């Protein structure tokens, strides 16, 4: 379901800053104001590097995640579905034995296994963001690399747990991919140890 258009989201900060009376409009070599155009914006997406795309989307992703996330609940979906969730509970174990390290959190209802890096797999963040659509990208390579760049960004954003966190209570803002009757990926965006 298409919810928000990327271009509309990009205009929101523009409007907000303009209302504050700040210098928002850049000038080109001839001193003429450069007003970003919708069409141009969309066209330029296909030429951006994955890192640049991740940088561009990150603030909107966090904003959307904070706004729409609900408490995590194990559920059944048809096919695959990704969303932003909040997970709160007690850290059972932090498994650092592999590069695909994980932290298991007991929420009281279920145990959730979160990926904490340095290798994070899957597309949970990209797919949970309502404004990121495959149609807007050049091809699957660019689309896939965006995912990896977003995972990397997440790793710079969340505080990485270690084995000393065992037994502590944590609040996590995360992106989750549900597949059929189970969870296939949980990627944290923010982790707070109480």
């Amino acid at each position, binding site marked *: 379901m298409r919810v928000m258009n990327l271009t509309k989201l990009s205009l929101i900060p523009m409007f907000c800053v303009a209302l504050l009376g700040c210098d928002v409009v850049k000038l080109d070599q001839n001193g003429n104001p450069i007003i970003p155009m919708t069409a141009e914006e969309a066209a330029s997406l296909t030429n951006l590097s994955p890192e640049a795309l991740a940088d561009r989307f990150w603030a909107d992703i966090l904003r959307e995640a904070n706004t729409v996330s609900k408490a995590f609940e194990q559920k059944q979906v048809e096919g695959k579905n990704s969303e932003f969730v909040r997970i709160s509970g007690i850290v059972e174990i932090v498994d650092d034995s592999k590069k695909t390290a994980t932290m298991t959190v007991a929420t009281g209802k279920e145990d959730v296994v979160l990926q904490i890096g340095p290798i994070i797999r899957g597309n949970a963040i990209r797919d949970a963001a309502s404004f990121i659509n495959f*149609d807007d990208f050049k091809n699957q390579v660019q689309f*896939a690399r965006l995912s990896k760049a977003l995972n990397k960004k997440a790793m710079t954003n969340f505080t990485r747990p270690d084995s000393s966190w065992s037994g502590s209570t944590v609040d996590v803002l995360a992106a989750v991919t549900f597949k059929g009757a189970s969870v296939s990926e949980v990627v944290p965006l923010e982790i707070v140890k109480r």
Partner: protein
Amino acid sequence: MKNKLLTISALAIATAFSGFTMADNGLIAIITPSHDNPFFKAEAMGAQAKAEELGYTTLVASHDDDANKQDQLISTAIARKAKAIILDNAGSDVTIGALEKAKKAGVPAFLIDREINKTGVAISQIVSNNYQGAQLGAEKFVELMGGEGKYVELLGRESDTNAHVRSQGYHDIIDDYTDMEMVAQQTANWSQPEAFTRMESILQANPDIKGVISGNDTMALGAEAALKAAGRDDVIVVGFDGSDYVRDSILAGANIKATVLQPAWDQAQMAMVQADQYIRTGSTGLDEKQLMDCILIDDSNAKQLDTFAMK
């Protein structure tokens, strides 16, 4: 009595005839790369089966990965007033022009497997998520290699986007493992005999390899044959496509341990269903670009694999 018989016969013939004409909802052109590769044959057969089920007649042809031939076939489809084109295309840039022609002529196109680098030209692009599939294959490969050791990569044909997409997907995963070392990376052009020859020489120059990751199944089979000939049962191989031959290899416990299935049959059938929907209602109700995930095949599920579909 005679009249009744005649009437019944006449009725029977009339029904049969009208049944025949009612079954013809128009022509669907199904164009893919050469059927020499069972993958493309499965696509074509899948699309044809669904088209006929839905009451269309079909024209099945191969462009042999030649942009000019593809152009001619698309022009033929237009001239024959096809209701739709189902296409696994010959190049993500070169195809755009031909499809713009088809669009102008009012013939909608439904792409499968390979995407093109432009939206708004085809109605649907049901694209194999080759990158995701490659990531799956690479994750399995890393697991089989124990996360370390020397390996070889066999690449597909240089001019085929998928060769690059898969290699990028492989490295997306493997390069994070600093203890894995790629000692050779060569193209075998999707060819089984060429992969055999390459593997032979690579093995002679690098006897201490642990694994081979291949851009597709036909090359994986060629590599396996070379490894067998050299008595190297210890070297693991991972392929891509989900062919029946590789399935047999996996089940027999040979060098090839895994492959990645692109659901060719399902994709082709999906494309036909969307084409039918579009022809009847003017819309598919879906986004143009649809990524279809691939499935990892190893000894845990190889038994269910048959003609590029899971039974």
